[in-house]
């Protein structure tokens, strides 16, 4: 295939729409009969509603209805109807189901009014009386009741079976480290709050604009919960203002908006407030313990990584957290465990690289501690224990250029100039620290369909139900399609985020580029075949004796590879075909055979410089080099943005992000963007992204692995390791805030 666009930096095709405000988001769609819903949230964490008084709210002129558990319309009885594509095992939360309160912030009423301000005001007049029960939101208090989840979450690998005898090997190891690690609960906090606009189309038909990472996931949720036929529910969500995993599962505003619209037979919009964004999923709390044993020659003899993570009382949320410690290094004795403990909070949710930055913060901090104790360079320690195969599952890697990532990253960073001694580097008042860590994330392909339609005017449309959550999916699919048919990108339109389009799983897990990209290419190739047949059949066709392997589609021409002066234009081929359009729908699937023998991961090596004003505890991250091995890069420009975004997310995890629970009230308290800190420009300095060359023919037909998540993995660990190198202080609880820097003693 002639690649004009694939592999070249291209600006986002949806950029102009976004910067001009023309890209419509879920809470911006409207309808002439639109009513506005405002959610009333529970003030207690556990108990029941004894009385809910809506009289004053209903008396406000303009209020249409107040929905509570007492008057809600009937929906599906069985709890499994509320499951969705990525739901963990358990009974999904059902808004307004009954008087029971299972977490603080739970929606207890929806006020619907003619106008948003009326709804908001009336919501303040809904009086709820509770009978509170004792709650427990503190993981430390319930850790003794931790259990191994009896039902595994679909799509999430449980910790691998132990190999060897980690306990005996740890005991026999001359050099050991062991410590506990923890990161704060984090909420996703995308810029766009969760929102749903339901447009009532009449005759029990609705069009739903939902903030969701998979339109078909919302569609099947709605049809199951409300008993509607699929043809009557269309979900259209062309743009998502960031989600980071919070939009994988249908959130409660979807249920409430659809419920209200069906009951009122009119269009309804429900937009959550920023504080309500803290009443849904989050990156879970977890108590981690890592023990490593090594010989003096820096070879790992034992790895043990244990985790107790919190979940809700109604679902067993699971993510791959400890697994990374079992696959990243060569070691014969490895044990990893993952237990859950129930808290009276909402169920945690997948948040950018769920599990990986959490688990690898612990593991890669421990590796740094081990390197220090052994007196070897942290990169050397990792290279010495490099795993050529995935020993946790005994499978080959489809490709693994992590070694090159270490080397290139170290070189670009200038790692060889590092003085290994903590506190040895200083400039002015600031201590300088250099730290590094490894990252890994799954490179998956998921079965996805796409359609390509070439019309007589020479324009191509490709379509797939998947979402672009701001990552650049519109752009890369346009590039792939344009290359497949030799078109300029301007002649290609990509349509996404619509449940009526060819089937796709949710956008997540970094699988979209490989999956939707492969599907688009397959569909385009089908169109190519038809076009080629038509071109070959022309009178005196210069391609008459060629087969499709011997031609290129380039510059809107089909030409012989051997002689580009012999060609048929696409226009002529189309005309010859004599049809209005050539259309093909194809499905790309991962190879089962490959999956049996291989695992596929993206890898990274993250190098960080921090400068620490030790007296005042202020940490500045002044330089990051992230070397990423992720197969072929479709668009270096959007790819770099993806990784930079992930790295900034990692800075947030390391230094800023923390949802602060009040365990007395059972509630997160800093529920706004003034007090829940994400990095701002001043916190972000030089970030260099390197893509290591990696040839992968097995992960996906495109050789692509996916980039949505690898950028965050390893970043927080590398920053914590750099802080240790700067200060000699080992901080094992994130975020590393001023109080921890000044309050932590130097390690012995």
């Amino acid at each position, binding site marked *: 295939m002639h690649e004009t666009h694939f592999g070249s930096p291209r600006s986002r095709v949806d950029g102009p729409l976004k910067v001009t405000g023309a890209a419509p988001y879920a809470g911006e769609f409207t309808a002439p009969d639109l009513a506005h819903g405002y959610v009333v949230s529970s003030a207690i964490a556990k108990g029941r509603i004894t009385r809910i008084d809506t009289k004053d709210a209903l008396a406000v002129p303009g209020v249409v209805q107040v929905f509570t558990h007492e008057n809600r319309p009937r929906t599906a009885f069985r709890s499994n109807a509320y499951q969705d594509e990525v739901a963990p095992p358990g009974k999904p939360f059902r808004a307004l189901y009954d008087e029971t309160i299972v977490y603080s912030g739970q929606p207890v009423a929806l006020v619907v009014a003619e106008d948003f301000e009326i709804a908001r005001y009336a919501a303040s007049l809904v009086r709820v009386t509770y009978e509170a029960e004792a709650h427990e939101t503190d993981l430390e208090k319930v850790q003794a009741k931790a259990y191994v989840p009896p039902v595994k979450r679909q799509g999430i690998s449980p910790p691998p079976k132990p190999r060897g005898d980690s306990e005996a090997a740890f005991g026999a190891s001359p050099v050991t480290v062991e410590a506990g690690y923890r990161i704060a609960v984090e909420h996703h906090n995308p810029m766009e709050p969760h929102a749903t606009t339901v447009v009532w189309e009449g005759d029990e038909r609705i069009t739903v604009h939902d903030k969701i990472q998979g339109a078909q996931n919302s569609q099947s949720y709605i049809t199951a919960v409300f008993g509607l036929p699929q043809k009557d529910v269309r979900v259209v969500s062309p743009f998502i203002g960031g989600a980071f995993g919070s939009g994988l599962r249908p959130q409660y505003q979807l249920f409430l908006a659809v419920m209200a619209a069906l009951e009122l037979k009119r269009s309804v919009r429900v937009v959550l407030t920023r504080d309500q964004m803290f009443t849904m999923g989050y990156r879970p709390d977890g108590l981690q313990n890592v023990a490593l044993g090594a010989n003096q020659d820096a070879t790992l003899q034992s790895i043990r990584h244990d985790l107790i993570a919190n979940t809700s009382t109604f679902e067993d949320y699971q993510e791959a957290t400890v697994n990374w410690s079992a696959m990243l290094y060569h070691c014969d004795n490895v044990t990893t465990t993952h237990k859950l403990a129930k808290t009276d909070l909402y169920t945690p949710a997948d948040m950018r690289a769920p599990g990986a930055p959490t688990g690898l913060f612990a593991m890669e901090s421990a590796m740094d501690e081990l390197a220090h104790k052994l007196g070897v360079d942290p990169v050397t320690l990792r290279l010495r224990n490099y795993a050529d195969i995935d020993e946790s599952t005994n499978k080959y890697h489809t490709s693994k250029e992590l070694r090159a990532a270490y080397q290139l990253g170290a070189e670009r960073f200038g790692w060889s100039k590092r003085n290994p001694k903590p506190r040895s580097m200083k400039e002015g008042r600031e201590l300088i620290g250099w730290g590094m860590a490894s990252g890994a994330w799954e490179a998956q392909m998921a079965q996805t369909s796409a359609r390509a339609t070439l019309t007589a005017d020479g324009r191509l449309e490709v379509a797939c139900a998947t979402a672009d959550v701001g990552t650049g999916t519109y752009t890369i699919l346009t590039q792939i399609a344009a290359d497949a048919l030799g078109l300029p990108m301007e002649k290609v339109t990509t349509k996404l985020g619509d449940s009526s389009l060819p089937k796709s799983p949710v956008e997540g897990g970094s699988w979209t580029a490989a999956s939707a990209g492969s599907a688009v290419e397959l569909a385009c190739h089908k169109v190519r075949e038809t076009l080629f047949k038509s071109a070959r059949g022309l009178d005196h066709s210069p391609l008459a004796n060629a087969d499709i392997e011997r031609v290129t589609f380039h510059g809107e021409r089909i030409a012989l590879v051997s002689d580009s002066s012999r060609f048929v234009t696409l226009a002529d081929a189309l005309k010859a075909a004599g049809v209005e359009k050539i259309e093909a729908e194809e499905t790309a699937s991962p190879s089962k055979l490959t999956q049996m023998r291989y695992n596929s991961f993206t890898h990274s090596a993250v190098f960080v410089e921090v400068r620490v004003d030790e*007296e005042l505890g202020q940490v500045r991250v002044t330089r990051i080099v992230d070397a990423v091995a992720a197969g072929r890069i479709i668009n270096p420009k959007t790819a770099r943005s993806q990784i930079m975004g992930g790295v900034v997310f990692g800075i947030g995890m390391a230094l*800023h992000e923390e949802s602060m629970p*009040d365990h007395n*009230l059972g509630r997160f*308290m*800093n*529920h706004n963007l003034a*007090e829940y800190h994400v990095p701002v420009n001043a*916190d972000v300095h030089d970030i260099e992204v390197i893509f290591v060359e990696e040839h992968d023919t097995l992960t996906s037909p495109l050789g692509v692995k996916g980039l949505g998540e690898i950028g965050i993995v390893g970043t927080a660990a590398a920053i914590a390791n750099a802080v240790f190198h700067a200060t000699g202080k080992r901080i094992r609880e994130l975020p590393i805030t001023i109080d921890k820097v000044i309050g932590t003693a130097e390690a012995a």
Partner: protein
Amino acid sequence: MNRFSYARPGSVAEAVREVAAPASKVLAGGTNLVDLMKYNVERPAHLVDVTRLPGLKAIEETGEGGLRIGALVTNTALAYDPRVQERYPLLSSTILAGATAQLRNAATTGGNLLQRTRCYYFYDAATPCNKRVPGSGCPAIGGVNRIHAILGTSEQCIATHPSDMAVAMAALEAVIRVSGPGGERDIPIAEFHRLPGDTPERDTNLGADEIIVSVELPAPRFATNYTYLKLRDRLSYAFALVSVAAALDMDGGTVREARIALGGVAHKPWRVPEAEALLKGVVPERGAFSLVADRILEGAQGFGGNSFKIDLAHRAILRALSQAAAGTPQSQTDKRIQ
């Protein structure tokens, strides 16, 4: 947000009459009040929009060599006024340490002084809070109190005043001119904000029927040896965990007079004149600064999550005084601390 009536008076006298209405609130930049109304924390029955009042947007010379700042002068206009930059660089620098350019463009001098605490519980109408609902309790005590006060607290309230600007004004001994039914009166900034005591619902001594018309800065004396050092949970756009406005009037190698005001540690900008007096006639060095810090922080009390602030404030006072003595004020753009 509740229903409210709205007035846009055309004169200060008219505005004073309007604010006398029950449960009225003055609306200027709206950067804090409107947020609080959306959160159902502030529920004014009557909004008095003062943004069109004539004569309150000017910065003028006073007879005594100082400046009079109109209540409606924006934070941006104040910070970048050449007279302020030259004669009161501490104030300019302090304002630029706060919020964002967008917020500073909207926020006014009077409104900044009247902004309310950032206490998590005050902001969350579903929780008790003595400041929001007197007598309901203070869950910050025994709860999440990372950002709370260590000085001047009461059993009813441990909230802090969040303003940066007011901290510099406290160090500069600004005087706040207010207008009420009986005419104008001056309130020294030290007496403007209150400690929570048994009435945490009252942030200031401004009468319910008064409005701020201007803030007067006395003749400048601290344009060389000054600094505003702000420590926070990220390098910009966060409220201070601890901040220090320090200003030294030097007489050769010794201190003639010192001013030190702390932000983020109390219900008002925190000054201890007796501590400042310890520097009088002294050569500025860390040993002396440490005694001053000890004295300022006498009686400081932590509540768990904020206990680190006592140590941090001590360290910050030392550094700020070092910066002021060296004549190297903290840059508000380069986040490296000098």
